[in-house]
């Protein structure tokens, strides 16, 4: 029989790993998504096609499958032994490139909904292409896409649990182990509560950011 306090402490360690996956994924996928969006909107056709294919594949195949492929690829393709450090790298890599595709499409939608007159006004005022991008279009795009970003982040919190397939000791993996050892569903319920609180905090934070951006 598991002590409740032991269970909470083990789940909390798992939660820390989940948070780590969450934050690192944001850190890498949001800028990568911007690069993909720019490639997708590029006037250079081959770049456009590559990004289109990338986005299509990332969104059209299961994240869990991508995770497993990235984790096992070094072994099956190159015969490289899998170090335990690589587990975490594979997770961050898989989540980042997957979420980058979603963010790219969100950003693109945001950029496209900025009125053309904004770019024209900037052009007539002599702004360079680069200045127009980071002074005029980028800040406007971010405000437009904030609600969609919030949706993605809430999904990401829940998706971190997919890491169980390569045995990352994040909260869901831990909860399943405890439940099996304890023959009780308690750990899963507690994990559910933790995920829910995690997401309430994410939603609350994003609401705060949206309010801060509401000055115009």
């Amino acid at each position: 029989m598991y002590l409740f306090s032991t269970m909470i402490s083990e789940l909390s360690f798992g939660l820390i790993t989940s948070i780590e996956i969450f934050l690192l994924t944001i850190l890498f996928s949001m800028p990568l998504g911007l690069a993909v969006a720019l490639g997708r909107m590029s006037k250079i056709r081959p770049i456009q096609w590559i990004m289109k294919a990338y986005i299509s594949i990332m969104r059209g195949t299961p994240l869990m499958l991508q995770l497993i492929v990235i984790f096992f690829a070094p072994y099956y393709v190159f015969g490289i032994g899998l170090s335990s450090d690589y587990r975490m790298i594979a997770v961050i890599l898989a989540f980042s490139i997957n979420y980058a595709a979603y963010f790219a499409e969100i950003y693109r939608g945001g950029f496209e909904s900025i009125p053309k007159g904004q770019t024209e006004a900037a052009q007539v005022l002599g702004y360079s292409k680069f200045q127009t991008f980071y002074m005029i279009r980028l800040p406007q795009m971010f405000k437009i896409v904030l609600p969609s970003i919030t949706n993605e982040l809430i999904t990401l919190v829940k998706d971190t649990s997919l890491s169980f397939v390569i045995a990352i000791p994040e909260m869901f993996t831990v909860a399943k182990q405890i439940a099996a050892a304890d023959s009780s569903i308690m750990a899963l319920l507690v994990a559910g509560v933790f995920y829910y609180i995690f997401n309430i905090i994410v939603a609350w934070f994003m609401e705060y950011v949206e309010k801060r951006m509401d000055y115009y």
Partner: protein
Amino acid sequence: MSLFEMKNIKKSFDGKEVLKDISFSVEKGQVLAIIGPSGSGKSTILRIATGLETKDAGDILFDGTFGLVFQDFNLFPHHSVMKNITNAPVKVQKRDKKEVNNVAKDLLKKMGLEDKENNYPSQLSGGEKQRVSIARALAMNPDMLFFDEPTSALDPEITGEVLKVIQDLAKEHMTMVIVTHEMNFAKNVADHIIFMDDGYIVEEGTPEEVFGSDNQRMKEFLGKFQD
């Protein structure tokens, strides 16, 4: 010598010719009004003059700086009124921030907007927005200004406040090309008027000449404003 000159400009969109051999010139200090029915090519002339559109043929003789005032303002919504005006002079022209701030404050005062510098465009009325956009163009110290129907997006009762600002600029001998549907304004403020129809300059001259013209299309067009 003219400050600005367009020579034999042609432009087609998707095989449809919308400017068919347009030539005109603007002297320094002159106010040119361009009038004509919707779709006759007035905006396209301004867009080619300001580099927003490419020309298919012809020449533009001008080596000065210009500003453009849009019908729908195109202020930057995420910048305060002050930043809308100062950002390009500071970031593009690399002028001194203090100097530009003073210029902007003077311009806002002139526009009757001295209390709005910290507002955002969404907090302004249409007439105020358009005056800010004129101030934004002027802060760049342009040699000439283009206006594309600066009052068409405004409620009729507030067009006056914008026209007054443009009239004041004319008194200061700002060189301006103004596309407008305000016939009285064109008559009173312009030194020279061009009447466009279907991609051609059909009539041009002083306000007296153009408004007294016998040209049939000109008369038909003016007839629509006679009430």
